[in-house]
């Protein structure tokens, strides 16, 4: 297993390289002068030249590329333009919060979405089905910042059940969890929607398959047929959809963090944007792309666990 993981990681190297190159090119080859974007068009030529130097833009593009790649290979994302702190440190400080939030929302998505989808599939066009449809419609329709604001208005401003600022003040577990409830619900809502939909349609498909008829021909109870025979076949599309929407999830995590004022990559991104901190933005881009690549590897490995056809051709 470990060897598989390592091999799969090695296979991801070309993708990672292409991703890094894209980031590099995005920041440099786009039309326009980044120094103007950063300093505004009133900036003096001297100031711009100084910034150019600082950004390493004065060197020939190939040399810049070598520098950039070299840095990343040694685990260095450069220094922040605004604070001059190593970007790796800034990221490392807040990354756990974002990961914690993402995982919590995945759990919310699975715990609510899977039973809801299974339930809905069994009462096609019945109450459960309509409920699940409405719920998932809401889930995909709410932009993350809108649902976040509504949650805040209801639970923090009106009901005062949770703090308006969801940043844990101490490391106590209870406090961490309390601070996690609203953000992970907000982020999980979308996941619930996707998981419910794919579970519902997957179950409908599985229950109509020949192997379900075979299971019925054995005299098994409906409950056994649903959970032991049909359900495992739904895991494959569920994993696919979770893997596919991880990118959306990470994007929404950013928004959720902003609205709930939680430390995390999201807040770091806003800081970088506000301060026109180019190098920090570039570093964050690398980190988030890296996260997606890792998530894709995890998804691939999960396929092997839920689908025997993948493991043994």
């Amino acid at each position: 297993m470990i060897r598989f993981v390592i091999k799969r990681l090695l296979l991801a190297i070309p993708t990672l390289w292409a991703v890094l190159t894209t980031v590099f090119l995005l920041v440099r080859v786009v039309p326009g002068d980044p120094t103007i974007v950063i300093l505004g068009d009133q900036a003096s030529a001297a100031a711009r030249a100084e910034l150019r130097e600082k950004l390493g833009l004065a060197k020939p593009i190939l040399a810049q590329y070598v520098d950039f790649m070299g840095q990343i290979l040694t685990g260095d994302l450069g220094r922040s333009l605004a604070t001059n702190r190593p970007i790796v440190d800034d990221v490392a400080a807040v990354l756990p919060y974002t990961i914690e939030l993402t995982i919590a929302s995945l759990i919310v998505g699975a715990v609510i979405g899977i039973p809801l989808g299974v339930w809905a599939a069994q009462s096609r066009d019945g109450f459960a089905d309509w409920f699940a449809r409405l719920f998932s419609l809401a889930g995909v329709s709410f932009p993350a910042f809108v649902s976040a604001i509504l949650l805040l208005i209801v639970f923090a401003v009106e009901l005062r059940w949770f703090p308006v600022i969801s940043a844990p003040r101490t490391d106590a577990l209870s406090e961490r969890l309390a601070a996690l409830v609203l953000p992970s619900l907000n982020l999980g809502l979308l996941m619930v929607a996707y998981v419910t939909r794919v579970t519902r349609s997957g179950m409908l498909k599985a229950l109509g398959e020949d192997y379900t008829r075979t299971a019925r021909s054995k005299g098994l109870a409906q409950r056994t047929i649903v959970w032991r025979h049909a359900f495992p076949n739904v895991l494959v599309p569920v994993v696919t959809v979770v893997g596919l929407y991880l990118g959306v999830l990470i994007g929404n995590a950013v928004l959720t963090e902003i609205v709930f004022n939680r430390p995390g990559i999201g807040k770091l991104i806003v800081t970088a944007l506000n301060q026109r901190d180019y190098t920090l933005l570039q570093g964050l881009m690398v980190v988030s792309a890296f996260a997606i690549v890792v998530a894709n590897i995890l998804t691939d490995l999960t396929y092997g666990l839920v689908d025997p056809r993948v493991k043994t051709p």
Partner: protein
Amino acid sequence: MSEAPLLLVQDLKKTFVAHRGWPIPKRTEVRALDGVSFEVGRGEVLGVVGESGCGKSTVARVALRLQPSDGGSVTFDGADVHMASRREMRAMRRRMQMIFQDPASSLDGRQRIIDALGEPLRVHGIARGAAVRPAVERLLDEVGLPRTALDRYPHEFSGGQRQRIGIARALSLSPDLIFADEPVSALDVSVQAQILMLLERLRRDRGLAFVFISHDLGVVRHFCDRVVVMYLGRVVESGPTAQVFAEPLHPYTRLLKESSPEPDPTRTITMNFQEGEPPSPVSPPTGCHFHPRCRLATERCRTERPALRDLSPGRTVSCHLA
């Protein structure tokens, strides 16, 4: 054969490559065609029989250059199909057509019949404008469909009628040769007979040559002059249909014949359930591909690939023991 054959397939090879596996995909090769040779004369019907995975469908697609070949040659009326330029190919396509097994999948569900049948006429400049409709009506008459079919969509027809539409489309360019890939195996017996009779009539009226691909010996026996038997990408036997099925020379042909059930309770089929799984085309056996299933197999069969040799006039077989 005295004159040059209409279609000459020589040592045709085709290998499919797939990348499968988890977590690291591995390269696997399937030799769908492993040196296949045969010829079809003008107006002749050649049957190609074999079981799934023997490469019989691939033959049609490679011979028509719908897929590139990996070796060997296909010569149509003296011209090499796979070396033809785009222009030459276009001209050749008019003369070689194909009928498919599943008429539902071979028709574009978004096209009405008038468009499905009129488009080839327009593309090849055979008929234009107002001339298209009467030309298509003639085609429908020829395959026995009512003219009211023109403005309907494929899904409004039954399987047999759709196969007629597929045949009409193949006829639209007035070809000399038609590849028919299991054209009746998706149909019920009564409809199957209707389509076979239609093909028989077209063959007579138009002097068409066919390469008729099928797994059903009865259908092949009924429709084909000569037959080629394939097993795992190779030709194992060929000859006049009646002779091959009356006196099969290759043990595989014999097995095929003995396994084919006849509607006659006095002639029981040979049934041997002790035999294991048939070999997969991914890793075919060495030597003669059939040796693991052959009761007569010798050491030579296990190591040496038998050549396809002429045994009597018009009959060839690829077996060390024949």
